């Protein structure tokens, strides 16, 4: 048996690490109830009040493209995650069900494309969309935000849990291959789908390197690009900035807290 004190020390250690992990969010949370003048350079916030929050909120809402950037991010991330998960899960399904030597080569080709750094293909991606007249369009943004190779791997690993007897049973019932996928496979792996959609949603919401190159019109900016451009204005109000950061962090955070059980389990399945 382990001594009790060891367990307590262990838990205390983890709690300290957890506090460090969430400290920035707490600081953001407190800062938006304060004013720039009282936060700047201080560790302890002296001027905390609801009216400060209201005035910070008002000036943020006056920021022309803030709300539209949230909506754009939501729109792009939703379509990219739904599309990416559909395409990738079809492939992950096929790679497990019709496994053969040739098919496995195709899987490896998909898998190893994860080794290509995004930064390395930045210029070609920009030029390809420029030549196809797709620069500054959501289509280009959605296509590049799908994280398909990773999702294929995720689905291939998790398809191992799918009992193949279900397929033979469905074939006897006269279902076509496509309807087996849609009517048997998708419902069976619903938790994996939820997690995969969430993970790719977060990826799309947070991605910056490619979106910054593709989008040019301010009204099309996603939230990450909006924040990035806000950050280059040195005079940006400190407290308002903290409020903007907090609000921008919330959508993925809330989704994560709702679905964290599925997400952690599915991410663990990639081992």
């Amino acid at each position, binding site marked *: 048996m382990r001594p009790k004190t060891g367990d307590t020390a262990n838990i205390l250690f*983890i709690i300290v690490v957890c506090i460090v*992990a969430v400290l920035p969010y707490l600081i953001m949370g407190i800062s938006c109830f304060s004013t720039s003048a009282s936060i700047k*350079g201080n560790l302890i916030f002296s001027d905390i009040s609801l009216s400060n929050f209201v005035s910070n909120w008002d000036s943020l809402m006056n920021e022309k493209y803030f709300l539209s950037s949230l909506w754009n991010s939501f729109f792009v991330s939703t379509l990219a995650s739904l599309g990416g998960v559909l395409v990738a899960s079809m492939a992950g399904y096929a790679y497990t069900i019709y496994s053969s030597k040739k098919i496995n080569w195709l899987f490896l080709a*998909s898998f190893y494309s994860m*080794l*290509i750094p995004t*930064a390395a*293909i930045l210029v070609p991606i920009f030029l390809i969309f420029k030549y196809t007249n797709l620069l500054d369009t959501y289509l280009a943004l959605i296509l590049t935000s799908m994280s398909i190779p990773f999702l294929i791997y995720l689905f291939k690993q998790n398809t191992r849990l799918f009992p193949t007897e279900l397929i033979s049973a469905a074939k006897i019932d006269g279902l076509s291959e496509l309807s087996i996928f849609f009517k048997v496979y998708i419902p069976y792996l619903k938790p994996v789908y939820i997690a995969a959609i969430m993970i790719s949603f977060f990826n799309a919401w947070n991605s910056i390197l490619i979106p910054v190159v593709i989008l040019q019109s301010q009204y099309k900016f996603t939230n990450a690009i909006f924040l990035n451009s806000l950050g280059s204005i040195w005079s940006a109000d400190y407290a308002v900035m903290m409020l903007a950061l907090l609000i921008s962090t919330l959508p993925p955070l809330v989704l*994560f807290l709702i679905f964290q059980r599925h997400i*952690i389990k599915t991410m663990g399945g990639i081992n």
Partner: protein
Amino acid sequence: MDKHLTPKFIFLLPSLILIGILSYLPLLYAIFLSFHIGRGKSLVFNYFENYMGLLSDEAFIIAFSNSLIFTLIIVPCIIVLSLVVSLSIHKVKSKQLQNLFTAILFIPCITSPVAYSLFVKQLAYSDGTLSNLLRGLNLVSSSYNILQEVWGARLLIAFVCIWAWSGFYILILSVAMNNINPDIYRAAKLDGATDFIIARKIVFPTIRPILALITILATSNTFQIYIESAIITKGGPGMATLTLVNQLYKKSFTYVAQYGYSSAIAIVIFTVCVLVSGMLFIAWSENEAENR
């Protein structure tokens, strides 16, 4: 319907087309561009001149060594921290608490890098909280400004990355440790094994393949570090935190676009990432073979 269009290919085709167009074609295009100079229709083949140019470009050499410095600081820290924390979480008896801790530590991973970088920039900027904190603790002189110090700025960025990325690796390691059969622990404890021996002889060997995977991922991610230094320090002071991707971005999209030259940088980044992954993979499989 075409006979060759079997369901198999209906399932595979969309992903193959997308990966082909958005990953492999751009990679080939980058390789092509890296041997050329000029833009659009005036593209001229210039052999290895872009690559030769890199060798005599001071900014490139500095950026390369900075990316290397960041990798050498950040990757070992992330691996050790993730191992220590996930071992601690693994020792907690309640499964619910384990999940809670893992979930909390994962939160930074779903935060936009732009958002946390801006947050840190606000804290660190000249009249910011961070420099005041260091001064208040008497760790630095009264005129100290963390963003104006070479190692201050570098360590700040390294710390931010470790804070932001560790949760992902902790999650993967925690789940791997949970997959170990509990009977093995019981047997080990009956034989009088201590925590340390259990960690060394049971946990560590089982998670070693995952440790290799994590090292590959962390190395490749860190070598591509960009947005943190672009926002927090803008590559400064001087060029102390200028990374390879910063330099690539500058050459492609700010001043006069030099696609050929920046593609040569891109190929260097690609080559380093592939070489590191390959080396780690080979080292890992040899290790596995020895232990079999």
